[in-house]
């Protein structure tokens, strides 16, 4: 047992430490990752919080590719000089949804030599790896693919603390939306969206239908955006144009040879 007086001093010191860390809890000048679409950035209060945790899920497992693509675009926009990106996938996810394929990633502005891949056996391993990686200051973004409800409130809180420590963007990627409580800053639901044809008979720029279902800093919202892989930027798709693209479904598909 400690004597009474030092204990009191001890408590006072602890209270001061807690007060300080609470004051720092929501730093005002935290890094922001702008998506480049004014409406979305305004909703997010200037862009996606940088050293924070976000959840990206596909509306249906079918759209997991699109959700992965959206996560890639965010990681590409979070890129910082001399920093790398870590992508964590479980073996199950790899079998179910395919492995990350190098040649396709370059189009998202994420060169493969800046990308590290970790394969783990279980979702808990993915969470462990993500927490450790977020603490590492040499990474700009850490993405973990999670099947099932492995990340609960405690786990996501730990991830947020780790992200704040290391300054990296953390993304949890799920094949379907989750209702589980989470401390993540934002939650996105992503689906693929028919692209605008490029006029040459091919597929147009990758389009996403985004739904921001949770936002700690503001309202939620829904947008349709296209990713311009030359400029590495999003552009808003006007609904009208998108509708005409959808109407074109009955015409025979054009073939481009090559």
């Amino acid at each position, binding site marked *: 047992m400690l004597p009474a007086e030092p204990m009191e001093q001890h408590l006072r010191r602890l209270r001061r430490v807690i007060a300080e860390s609470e004051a720092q809890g929501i730093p005002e000048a935290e890094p922001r990752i702008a998506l480049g679409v004014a409406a979305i950035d305004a909703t997010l209060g200037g862009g996606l919080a940088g050293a924070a945790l976000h959840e990206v899920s596909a509306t249906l497992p*079918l759209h*997991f*590719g*699109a959700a992965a*693509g*959206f996560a*890639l675009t965010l990681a590409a926009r979070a890129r910082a000089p*001399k920093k*790398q990106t870590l992508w964590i996938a479980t073996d199950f996810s790899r079998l179910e949804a*395919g*492995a*990350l*394929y*190098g*040649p*396709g*990633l*370059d*189009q*998202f502005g994420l060169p*493969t*030599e*800046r*990308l*590290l*891949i*970790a*394969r*783990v*056996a279980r979702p808990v*391993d993915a969470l*462990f*790896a993500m927490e*450790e*990686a977020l603490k*590492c*200051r*040499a*990474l700009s973004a850490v993405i973990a693919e999670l099947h099932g409800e492995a990340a609960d409130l405690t786990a996501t809180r730990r991830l947020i603390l780790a992200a704040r420590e290391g300054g990296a963007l953390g993304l949890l990627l799920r094949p379907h939306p989750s209702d589980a409580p989470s401390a993540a800053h934002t939650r996105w639901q992503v*689906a*693929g*969206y*028919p*692209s605008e044809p490029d006029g040459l008979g*091919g*597929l147009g720029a*990758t389009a*996403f*239908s985004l739904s921001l279902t949770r936002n700690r800093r503001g309202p939620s919202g829904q947008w349709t955006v296209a*990713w311009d*892989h*030359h400029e590495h930027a999003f552009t808003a798709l006007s609904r009208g144009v998108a509708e005409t693209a*959808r109407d*074109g*479904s009955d015409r025979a*598909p*054009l*073939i*481009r040879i*090559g």
Partner: protein
Amino acid sequence: MRRSSALDEALIIAGPVKGALRLTAVNDAAAAQRLKVGMPLADARAMYPAIAVADADKAADARLLEAIADWCDRYTPLVGLDPPDGLLLDVTGCAHLFGGEAALCRDLTQRLAAQRYQARVAVAATVGCAWAVARFSSLPGSGRVAGEAGRGVDAATPPGSIRSPSSPFSGGMGEIIASGDEREILSPLPLAALRLSSDVVDALAQVGLKRIADVLDRPRAPLAARFGQAFVRRIDQAFGREDEPITPRLPVPAAMAEQRFAEPIALEQDVLGTIERLAGRLGQTLERRGEGARLLQAALFRTDGKVFRIEVGTAEPLRDAGRIRRLFTDRLDVIGDEVDPGFGFDVVRLAALAAERCEPAQTGLAAPDHAAELAHLIDRLGARFGSRRVARLVPQDTHIPEFAVMAVGAGQMRACPGRSALRTSAPHPGHAEQDSLAPARPVRLFERPEPITAIAEVPDGPPAQFTWRQVRHVVIHAEGPERIAMEWWRDDMGHVLKRDYFRVESREGLRVWLYREWPSDPQQPTRWYAHGVFA
């Protein structure tokens, strides 16, 4: 070989030798009944019809010898096997750690006796001499101490020894032969002590040469002519006129540090603390050489003789004690259950199995050292999940989609991104700067293409709809075909695999990479597969 009961009963072990079942080992009780190794089993049965016989198991004997060799690692990292029943230890420069050669021998025999192994130990300046004395000397274990360094130890488990609780070995503590005394010691021994084949020993016996003394002063040339050059070489090796290195069974580490405990330690915290302390010492050794460790091994010697070896690899040469400890913490988290401390570990050794030149990096005062931090993260994830599971994607110079990229363990290639591209055979043409004309590739590729059903409007055309994972999708846009065929030089089976790839977009916005496989036999129908998904 292990008998837990039947303490005083005779036990013999028999196996096929030269086409007949003969005794390969006998225990003390059997030896007292005049049973000898080499005797036919039928004779032994005739003498003692009720005697216990066990089958010889050479594989198990070899495993046991390996296990004892592993344990002997506590004395020196240079342990060689001398099958079927001997071990060779190079104790040059190690004996003083145990208080001299005599003390080392005493420690060795006592510890082996505690594990109920009988052993005969000899220390000599040459392997040949130690071998001969350990197996053939009948002198009482007297402990003739010599002050000579540069020595081999031969610990032979004599053929007649069966691990048996009834007869803990209580003989001498080993023979120590001073350098220069070889002639005196070896002369009275039989010629078989020179490690000669039985044919040569028999041939020598026919001409009346039975002891080593008989051949020592004879002219060498006729001996070599008659009994072979190998015979003369064995003499030279025994007397140190020809060098004979001990071949270690485990790689000799580049650097190592070890800690011995009078009281064994068992707590994981203590083990890790010891590893950190040893890492500090190891780091100093490596720093003096300008090196860092790429492969580290911690060997934990349990008091009962079991040895656990835990290895971790590093992406960059490492000598930071704290980081080395973290790596072992992660590794132990995963395999901790297998490392059962039992009654504790009494020796912990940390060795750098591989070391590499380590450039002293100039780091700014304020700038965090990103490269080192990343390398440490890679090491830690590698220690926990396996070093191949933390990988980088390296483009390959092929257009076959499955092989266009290879996952290479990030620990194997230096974490420096600039150098990684140089290590690959040839950079992909459209790799560094994405060529806008390069065909689009999916972000996820299935390990095995998934069969789908598809309907095309024209025989060579893109699918109009397809069913994948039991969902029907209507194609609204399609791009292709892009013909990808097996590279002609790889086509060794005579099959010509041709695939026509299409990039299609469904009404729901799903973008998939499909292909039609053209069969080698034109009579066969074409098949469709989904190979990847686009974002």
